[in-house]
């Protein structure tokens, strides 16, 4: 056996699940930690450079006295030097304490804890719905590459992608809720996920607004990944076995094309959350995006930082998950995992 074989057989002993995998996982988690640290730095710096005098006047409103403002600043540590504030903030963060909202009469963790599931459920449904449409669409386009159907779908996707979602949402509301009166104009109003799910009609427009853009984006990814894979040698091998084109696509190509698409998913999370601001405000669905929006308007720093952190963590975890799923789909990357 050659050197290559020897090296490979050595690696074989340690596949996913072996100590190398855990080492890899550890390293990735460590890197994620660094990413989150950088996020906190960016956000912290941004907020405090932005408003050196602190948010007190805005928070306490016009009726508050100077003494009350001073007391507020003292209580929240806004009178300390910036770096001390940062260290203090990190210290609390490590203990899992996101602090208290200035405006909402509750701890940040509580506020996010209540809003996050609502946003997540909406995001998840939209994402699933979008992928169920986008993946077959991309494959279809790749197979029909250059034909009229491909052109038509590409054009459609471009148009949807190019339409600002607030405009798109508005058009959907006008058409489906007000003209045709098929579905309600606002999202389900329940506090819990269960209540939200109990009203599927209310979910139609918000999900559609969020999903159309995702479909446009991901069907393009899927299309080009599929096109790439269709020109791979293994497709030729499969065809030489006498496997029909349809089977080659479903059995061989799809799986390999999904890999890059899944890798994109992890990084799409923040974009998704960002888009939720529009959907939530348009459909009266008080989730994370809106929480962030109102907090930005009212300088509610703890909530702002909390939201960004949650999303940053979600993104880090998301891309880690995407990598792991990718490895499950593609044995080649398992190699990279070790």
């Amino acid at each position, binding site marked *: 056996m050659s050197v*290559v074989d020897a090296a490979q057989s050595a690696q074989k002993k340690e596949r996913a699940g072996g100590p190398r995998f855990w080492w890899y996982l550890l390293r990735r988690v460590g890197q994620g930690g660094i990413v989150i640290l950088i996020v906190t730095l960016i956000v912290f710096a941004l907020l405090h450079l932005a408003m050196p005098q602190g948010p007190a006047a805005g928070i306490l409103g016009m009726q508050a006295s100077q003494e009350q403002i001073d007391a507020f600043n003292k209580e929240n540590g806004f009178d300390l030097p910036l770096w001390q504030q940062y260290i203090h903030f990190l210290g609390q963060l490590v203990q899992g304490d996101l602090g208290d909202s200035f405006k909402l009469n509750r701890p940040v963790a509580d506020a996010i804890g209540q809003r996050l599931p609502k946003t997540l459920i909406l995001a998840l449904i939209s994402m699933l719905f979008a992928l169920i449409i986008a993946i077959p669409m991309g494959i279809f386009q790749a197979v029909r590459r250059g034909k009229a159907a491909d052109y038509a779908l590409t054009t459609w996707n471009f148009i949807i992608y190019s339409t600002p979602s607030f405009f798109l949402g508005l058009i959907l509301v006008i058409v489906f809720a007000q003209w045709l009166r098929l579905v309600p104009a606002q999202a389900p109003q329940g506090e819990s996920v269960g209540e939200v799910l109990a009203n599927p009609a209310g979910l139609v427009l918000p999900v559609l607004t969020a999903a159309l853009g995702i479909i446009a984006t991901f069907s393009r990814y899927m299309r080009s990944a599929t096109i790439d894979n269709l020109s791979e040698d*293994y497709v*030729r091998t499969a065809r*030489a076995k*006498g496997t*029909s084109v349809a089977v080659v696509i479903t*059995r061989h190509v799809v799986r390999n094309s999904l890999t890059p698409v899944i890798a994109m998913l992890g990084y799409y999370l923040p974009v998704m959350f960002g888009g939720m601001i529009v959907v939530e405000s348009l459909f009266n669905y008080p989730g994370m995006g809106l929480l962030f929006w109102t907090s930005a308007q009212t300088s509610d720093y703890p909530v702002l930082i909390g939201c960004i952190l949650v999303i940053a963590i979600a993104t880090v975890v998301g891309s880690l998950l995407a990598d792991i799923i990718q490895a499950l789909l*593609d044995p*080649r990357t398992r190699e990279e995992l070790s």
Partner: protein
Amino acid sequence: MSDALLSISDLKVTFRTEDGAVDAVKGIDLEVRSGEVLALVGESGSGKSVTAMAILKLLPRTATVTGSIRLSGRELLPLAESDMNAVRGSEISMVFQEPMTALNPSMRIGDQITEAILNHRKVSKAEAWERAVDMLRRVGIPDPERRAKSYPHELSGGQRQRVVIAIALSCEPQLIIADEPTTALDVTVQAEILDLIRRLAAESGTAFLLVTHNMGVVADIADRVAVMFRGTMVEVGDTRTVLTAPREDYTKKLLSAVPSLPDVASVVEREPESDAPAAVLAFDAASVTYRRGGRPFLALDGVSLRIAPGEIVGLVGESGSGKSTLGRAALGLLPLSGGTMTLFGEKVGRGGVRGRRERELRGRVGAIFQDPGSSLDPRMTVGEAIAEPLLVQRRRFPTSAAQRRARVAELLDAVELPSNYASRYPHELSGGQRQRIGLARAIALEPELIIADEPTSALDVSVQAAVLQVLRELQEKMHFACLFISHDLAVVHEISDRVAVMLKGEIVETGSADDVLLAPQHPYSRRLLASVPVPDPDKQALRREARAAALAAAP
């Protein structure tokens, strides 16, 4: 003609491309008989692969195929796609060149074989699986039950090629088309695969249409040979006749360009290696360690090697043995993790000269790389590429733009290219021309040492012969020393004064080219040498036996 299994007549293939129609195959006739191995040879682009793909109707939609292809008398060209699927894999199968990419990376190999079986045989999944395991065993994969559950990346190149062959064999087709099945493999592995093909042809009476450009392979395995040249069939005939007494000029030219090792001489007494004190390059117990996935990997393991001024040292060994690593270390692209390296008598690297002085020393070393495609920046003109060393080292050799232009013309002339090529881009040149540009760039600063890493392995034999010729002439003129890395033993023999053999990061044998290549001492050197097929059927038959004997003797 009735015994012809496959008969092709007046096959024409035309591609519609953006530059107009390309006639890839211009009306060829060919026959493959049952149980024979027919080799299809010819230089790159002559239409070998297109012919092979046309038979299975796997050409892209841009291709127009005319003529007739008959399998056991049945015309294939008019068949519908579904009927053709019944033929593919069942009556005719195909083995492709690149074992690395020919398999679906995310499917277990057992499943990939089973798929072929289930496509054509009405058997249960379990039966098919059993048969797949059996096929793996037949192609010589150890522990086939376990291997069937592996994914392609877990196998070595040779094993993967065996799997591809197993897929092709799985439905016992009458004909297997193998398009360069061994080109991507090491010579030792290539020899194993060729053995396998020969055995299968003999055992099951399957006919092989073997596409190759390697005359040694042809000599080793083929019953008959067909020679193609630019889409036409130049010569078809019995292997021995074609190789030893070619009729056509093109065949003769092709054969003469193939370098070959002279016959094994009797074992000569070796002179002990004399330590020339004035080595231009000397490695002393040098080691290089790579980090792979966080773990160290020793790619060079205590290597000692010296190159005297004006001397050409060949470096051989199979893939992954560390040849390129050694070359890169010599170029200063990799730091040594142990041992020392001396350039022109001065120690470089850790503890040696550094900074400008080191860069000055480096300026006295030139480099040529394997791939003529990637060794030139596609966005730089030939002139810019050749002038780059002058520009980079302009502190040492101050030059004006005009001087550089003049020098570029001079260098182009030296590598026998017209000077107006300076304004061309690499993609406007052929592979051989590109490699000459690489050569011109390497000698621009009149180096005392050139590191050449597989400078001709990507070229056709005839082109390779021309490039080697230029290199040799330049060396005679300029007297640079050269580290010549190659896996082609014949080429190395032709050009080198001394040869070093590498195995797993170590140099196992050094000596004069004749000593090492004609009378190897180390068992590995011997095995390596025995695996190289020579383009002479009779000699090759002898070598094959010798190799078998050597293998049997080895533990």
